[in-house]
């Protein structure tokens, strides 16, 4: 057996290294960009359709992530999805007539909430509601609209011809 001091020191180093690795995994690898500290505040937005938006999705202004989607619920009275946004406390000067829209990152990426600033002098406060919202674009709706337009164009093109025949 080696002298016990050496064993103690190397055991200590090993345990220290192990905990350093755990700390690295927990803090550096995971998504801890927005720790929910006391300075952050909540905003509410009601959407007709949120598409594939999930809790935890980023909230961005001009492409910069300023917060996260905290909670999504369905309101039975309004028939709308109530989305709670948690905005980082650093960004406390968002005009209160800004509008929120649901976008898709890339062609197949996840969905996020984009806020584009309005022109009001007053800023959003904790718990306020974003009045101007734009729903998620559902691909199937777009396609069906397009097909419907095509079909109505064809039928309207066909109608005068049949009318002329009469």
């Amino acid at each position, binding site marked *: *057996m080696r002298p*016990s001091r050496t*064993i*103690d020191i*190397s*055991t200590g*180093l*090993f*345990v220290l*290294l*192990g*905990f350093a*690795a*755990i700390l*690295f*995994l*927990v803090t*550096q*690898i*995971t*998504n*801890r*960009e927005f720790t929910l500290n006391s300075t952050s505040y909540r905003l509410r937005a009601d959407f007709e359709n949120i598409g594939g938006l999930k809790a935890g999705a980023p909230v961005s202004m001009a492409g910069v992530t300023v917060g996260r989607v905290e909670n999504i619920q369905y309101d039975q009275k309004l028939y709308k999805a109530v989305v709670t946004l948690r905005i980082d406390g650093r960004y406390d000067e968002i005009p209160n007539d800004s509008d929120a829209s649901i976008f898709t990152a890339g062609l197949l990426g996840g969905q996020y909430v984009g806020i584009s600033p309005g022109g009001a002098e007053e800023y959003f406060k904790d718990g306020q509601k974003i009045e101007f919202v734009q729903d998620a674009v559902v691909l199937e709706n777009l396609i069906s609209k397009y097909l419907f337009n095509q079909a109505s164009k064809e039928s309207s093109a066909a109608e005068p011809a049949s009318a002329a025949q009469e």
Partner: protein
Amino acid sequence: MPSLIREFFDGATTFLERAGRIARFGLQVLAATPGTVLRVRPVIEQVYNTGALSLVIIMTCGLFVGMVLGLQGYEMLNRVGSEEYLGTAAALSLLKELGPVVTALLFAGRAGTALAAEIGLMRATDQIAALEIMAVDPMKRVVVPRFLGGVIAMPLLTATFIAIGIFGAQLIGVQFFGIDQGSFWSQIRGTVELADVGEGLIKGAVFGVACSLIAVYEGYHAVPTAEGVGRATTRTVVVSAVVTLVLDYMLTALML
């Protein structure tokens, strides 16, 4: 033909008997644990034996597993034109699967065999009988500290393996293939959840309990001959590997 069926039947019974004995032995170890916790010294020595001495092999293998993930992942993702997801792919596969499993297999090979051989040799050279004669419980003096040492060491080894592995993937992806460093890390941070890290550590801890228990069981119940100790060592590795992979499937299904 009937002899074949009987052989199969015998094999199945032996397997069940063995599983039952290991489980009962585990309960005995747990029962003996409270009396041993106050004596920290032997446990520290065993953390050194199973943990600190396994560190070099764990770190080397972690680096190479991570680097292979970097090469293979880049090659595969390059075909679909999304190389920047390499970090996510490497980190998630290390955290959820490769880290705990490979660490457990290495742990069984490096530390488990050492434990089994040590205890088996103590049995073969009548040291355990001597302890019993001196009214020292060999369970408390020999088995429990080794078991606890392994249980403490495994999660730490797993975390080290994963961290080094991610570093290895980064080495290949960023330094060798030239993926942007920022997008590599932000992709990882954007997708890895705290639960994924938890899954890796839980798996590591469970495998640690299983592999340590198997090692001390095989050593303690080794046939007290040179051949018996050799067999116990071999069985430790084989049984640990099989149990680790079966447990891995169960844990994955549970935490999906």
